[in-house]
């Protein structure tokens, strides 16, 4: 994954970048499977490596496939991202250890989900139970977000096409 990221940052050929991002997504999906998050891994493999690769290639078809050389050396963005990385690492050091059963995250609602989800919803997959039942409002919001994103793309791309037709007339 580290190799993929380094080549991603260095490469100027956008086609190679898109393909590398697909590879990165598959590697990420493997990591998620290793962490026992199969639902997320499935989403990562299908969306990250599948659909978004196709969409990015479609977008690439509309523009040049070679990235332009930057006008200035990007020192300020580099400094900003380096300091953010520093802050995130500093914050991550304060987190409880991975899979620590006494972490606050695991003592709040998780015991109820894990112990009672089967009895209350009859659904063995806890992820589905939490997603669709306990957190139903959140998922409704997410579906609305996806819907809004689609509507936004339609609004942007379709209007452009109509004005082009009008100017042609």
């Amino acid at each position, binding site marked *: 994954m580290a190799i993929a990221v380094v080549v991603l940052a260095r490469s100027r050929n956008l086609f190679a970048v898109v393909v590398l991002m697909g590879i990165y997504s598959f590697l990420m999906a493997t990591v998620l499977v290793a962490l026992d998050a199969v639902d997320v891994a499935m989403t990562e493999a299908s969306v990250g490596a599948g659909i978004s690769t196709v969409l990015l290639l479609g977008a690439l078809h509309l523009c040049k496939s070679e990235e332009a050389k930057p006008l200035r050396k990007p020192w300020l963005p580099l400094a900003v991202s380096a300091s953010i990385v520093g802050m995130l690492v500093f914050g991550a050091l304060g987190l409880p250890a991975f899979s620590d059963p006494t972490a606050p995250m695991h003592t709040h609602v998780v015991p109820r989900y894990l112990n009672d989800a089967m009895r209350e919803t009859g659904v063995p997959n806890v992820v589905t139970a939490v997603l669709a*039942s306990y957190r139903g409002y959140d*998922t409704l919001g997410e579906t609305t977000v996806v819907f809004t994103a689609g509507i936004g793309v339609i609004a942007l791309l379709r209007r452009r*096409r109509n004005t082009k037709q009008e100017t042609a007339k």
Partner: protein
Amino acid sequence: MKHDLILRVAAKLLIPFILLFALYVQFHGDFGPGGGFQAGVIIAAAVIFYALIYGVEAARKAMPDRLVETMLASGVLIYAGVGLMGLVMGGNYLDYFVLDRDPVLGQHRGIFWVEVGVAVTVSGVMLKVFYMFVSRGRDPE
């Protein structure tokens, strides 16, 4: 890629199984990994695959723009409708316990329809975005 015989035959063999897998992910999401979002993406991927091999016009014939746009909106409406059903049957909004006499069965029913709504919206949006990009690319040529 329209005239590549091997790709065409392989695609024809694969696409039914991709769609079947999507349905499995959709309806088996209660018991194994998966659910509405993943199933929607897999359905969209199958149609995009079809479009890549057989051309966008063939895909548009199988999944017309009007159907895709309807899917886009109706998924959210199905989801919100499940919530309203909870209200009608005398519970809270998005309360699945009241959807059946047995609360556990009610939960099952609620989760099932909610997942259907998610899958319909997600596959509609993905397909629509793909169609929009493809038709943009073809116009200037």
